[in-house]
């Protein structure tokens, strides 16, 4: 394919370590003893559980309902019994727990009724809703709900649809194997995205260290007679970052402050396209994904794994060496050591690397920064990491933002090249989380302040309104009294008729306000305290009503119009 490719600045070339795991075909991981399916597996709202302990579920049955538009449903990965809906430690560096549906498989792996859809007969809204219900999310690792990215921008024409098959992280080969073995379904999935977004061009980017995958994709594109371009891009980490791949294929640079659709381009991972096709054409929600098992193991390989499979159980398939002391989820550049070996595989899990000190030696001690600028040379976003490091260390977070810390994609290139072995990315994560925390605190304080001010304003307004109303009522009453007095006195007392008008309306209003407040306080007291008149028999109630009626007949009428007592 002859095409003018662009370059992004920076990048590094770590040893790829892909050959270990890409020579064997994809294998199916056996059913684990138990599945722990976290409900929150995508960006956006946490799905609400719709099953409870004791329920039997079928494979593909909805167990977590999408909450909000940016959210994706979660499904039972196999048939069995829900053992619990409970908190469970997550595959996240924080080591925090989150709500999971724990399923004991019944061994039958029995599907729900699956209905293929002819998506061409549906409106785009219906297709997007179907993908949302099928739990289709970005499988490149960001797990952003796919349907949320399938609406073209209204103002900017969609120029390019970029499909990411670059897989630039060392060790990971799941996208490579997916493209080699299931290229046709990937291409069919891309066609769905194309039909929804209507781009002028579709560009499939694959790093040039995966010639088999590129050949398979080309063959599939030709077989399906699609006008997609399969482009081999130079192998340079992080060419598989969405922004870098967009840059390489289209020349466009998407800053942190913009969405790619603002520039007329959208990007999806190949595995996302594959699951979208399975969801539409086979009615299969996302209940499994391909996971590379590699690192300190005897038999590295790619497996199709049910979501919720405990990682330690899964890793046994690859026969880890006995000195394995941890599991890295993701690649060696951006992955993390899982806090607990039992954590489940989730939709974001593309690779598990058995960790040991031979593979990833302990880090040498951190030296002072010598400002050599190697990090700036390596940064694909052309930032000045050593400056951000300086300010992050000093907790001068405002300055880190001036140096565009939020444009940092945490790819790890700077840490990789630093001769002083400074864990730069860690400093940037720290700075970002501090900035977010401060923002949250500030927002909370601003909110409280706004609520307080609004309440004060409302109280003032109500007071003023009440005073006005009372004044009016007092005046009206005075006039009425005067009229009555005039009526009784008749023509004999013409001067008296004018007398009540002389009553100070302000004083009257004050008096009325006090009375009203007392009445209100009494009403509140009565409302707050249980009355002995509650829970009475019908006969008693009848009796009480009669007494009340008698009392009312002898009592003088209320001195105020009834509405005046109600603020």
């Amino acid at each position, binding site marked *: 394919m002859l095409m003018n490719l662009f370059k*992004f*600045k920076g990048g*590094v070339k*770590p*040893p790829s370590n892909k050959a270990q795991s890409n020579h064997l075909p994809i294998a199916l991981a056996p059913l684990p003893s138990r599945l722990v399916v976290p409900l929150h597996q995508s960006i956006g709202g946490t799905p609400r559980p719709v099953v409870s302990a004791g329920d039997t579920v079928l494979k593909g049955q909805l167990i977590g309902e999408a909450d909000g538009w940016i959210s994706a449903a979660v499904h039972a990965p196999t048939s069995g019994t829900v053992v619990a809906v409970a908190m469970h430690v997550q595959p996240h560096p924080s080591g925090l727990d989150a709500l999971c549906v724990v399923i004991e498989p019944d061994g039958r792996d029995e599907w729900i009724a699956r209905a293929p859809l002819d998506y061409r007969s549906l409106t785009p809204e219906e297709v997007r809703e179907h993908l949302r219900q099928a739990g289709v999310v970005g499988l490149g690792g960001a797990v952003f709900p796919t349907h949320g990215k399938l609406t073209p921008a209204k103002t900017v024409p969609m120029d390019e649809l970029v499909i990411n098959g670059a897989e630039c992280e*060392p060790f990971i080969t799941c996208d490579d194997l997916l493209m080699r073995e299931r290229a046709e379904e990937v291409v069919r999935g891309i066609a769905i995205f194309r039909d929804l977004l209507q781009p002028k061009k579709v560009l499939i980017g694959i790093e040039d260290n995966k010639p088999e995958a590129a050949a398979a994709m080309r063959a599939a594109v030709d077989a399906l007679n699609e006008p997609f371009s399969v482009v081999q891009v130079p192998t340079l980490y992080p060419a598989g970052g969405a*922004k870098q791949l967009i*840059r390489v294929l289209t020349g466009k*640079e*998407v*800053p*942190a402050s*913009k969405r790619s659709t603002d520039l007329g381009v959208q990007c999806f991972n190949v595995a996302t396209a594959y699951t979208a096709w399975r969801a539409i054409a086979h009615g299969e929600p996302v209940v499994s994904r391909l996971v590379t098992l590699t690192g300190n193991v005897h038999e590295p390989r790619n497996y199709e794994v049910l979501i919720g499979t405990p990682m330690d159980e899964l890793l046994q398939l690859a026969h880890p060496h006995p000195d394995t*002391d*941890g599991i*890295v989820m*993701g690649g*060696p*550049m*951006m*992955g*993390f*050591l899982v806090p607990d070996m039992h954590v489940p595989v989730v939709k974001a899990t593309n690779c598990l690397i058995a*960790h040991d000190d031979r*593979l*990833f030696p*302990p*880090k*040498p*001690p951190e*030296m*002072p*920064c*010598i*400002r*050599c*600028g*190697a990090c*700036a*040379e390596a940064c*694909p*976003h*052309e*930032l*000045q990491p*050593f400056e951000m490091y300086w300010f992050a260390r000093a907790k001068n977070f405002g300055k880190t933002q001036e*140096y*565009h810390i939020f*444009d940092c994609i945490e790819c*790890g290139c700077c*840490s*990789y*090249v*630093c*001769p*002083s*072995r400074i*864990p730069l*990315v*860690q400093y940037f994560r720290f700075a970002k989380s501090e900035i977010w925390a401060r923002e949250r605190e500030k927002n909370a304080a601003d909110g409280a302040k706004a609520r307080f001010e609004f309440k004060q304003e409302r109280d003032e307004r109500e007071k003023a309104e009440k005073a006005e109303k009372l004044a009016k009522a007092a005046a009206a009453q005075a006039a009425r009294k005067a009229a009555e007095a005039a009526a009784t006195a008749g023509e004999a007392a013409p001067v008296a008729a004018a007398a009540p008008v002389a009553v100070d309306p302000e004083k009257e209003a004050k008096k009325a306000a006090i009375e009203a407040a007392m009445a209100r306080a009494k009403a509140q007291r009565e409302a707050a305290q249980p009355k002995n008149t509650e829970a009475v028999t019908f006969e008693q109630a009848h009796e009480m009503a009669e007494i009340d009626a008698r009392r009312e007949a002898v009592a003088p009428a209320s001195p105020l119009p009834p509405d005046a007592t109600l603020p």
Partner: protein
Amino acid sequence: MFAPAPFLLKDASVSQVMTQVCLALLPGIAAYAWLIGPAVLVQIVIASLTALLAEAAMLKVRGKPQAMFLSDGSAVVTAWLIALAFPPLAPWWLVATGTVFAIVVAKHLYGGLGQNPFNPAMIGFAVCIVSFPALMSQWPSVGLQLSLVEQIDVILGLAPRVDALTGATPLDALKTALKLGDGSIDVAHLLANQDIYGNFAGRGWEWVAAGYLLGGLWMWQRKLITWHVPAAFIGAMVLVSGGLWLVNPGQFANPLFHLFSGGAMLGAFFIATDPVSGCTTPRGKLIFGAGAGLLTYIIRVFGGYPDGVAFAVLLMNLCAPLIDLLTQPPIFGMKDKT
């Protein structure tokens, strides 16, 4: 287990960087020892030992890990630059004083490795040339034939420091001749006739400078330095010296002479490129290099000192933070704006 990503690290370290800088100095040092005399090797040993002792003492005082910082090689690089910048027959205590000042004051009192606002070696040089101008101007005379032992005796003060040992440097000779001359002396004539001049600059010294150039190009090829500082340094020097030479070739030496005389090549590739005290942005490095080159020329031709690299670099060190601040490059995706 605290092990944040990335789990893979490139094989790089501060000591590797410093070792490579020392390796890059070797061609120049070899030419120096061969053509000017082996005394420079003695000075390198004296400066290195002094630097390591001063470093160890300061690390102890500051409560820093000794092994890690002594092995980083930064003190050795400073020591080598001092040894190469000082006159090779300077008394041992002069070199030691410069080195101690560089390590103790210019480096550690400012916070140690990575924290010094000024180039430590050039601070050491500047302190000594201001304090001991006579000793710092005694360069070996051309064709001086002294054995290594005799040179060591001079350095250690065991042999008398006689006038015959020293002579003018090519830059000195040129300056003096032009100043003393009645205007009839012309540079081309001087360069052609005096025995201290070689093929295109000072005899012997021209090849030392060529050695630095070679080592500098190797550092560039190894990506230890970028092209910006040396190119701007040399470019500025060529521009200003070439301009004046074209206007008045009788009063001004040609650019080639200036580039290969004094500390120009050492300064362009090894001193102005110090990342700690220099600029870090690409445009900043160009400004820094050009400023240092220009100031070097101005000081050596119009100023009171025979050469100007040290003061030029120190003056530019002063400006580096501001230059960096004003030359921040646009980031990915923000190149259209401003």
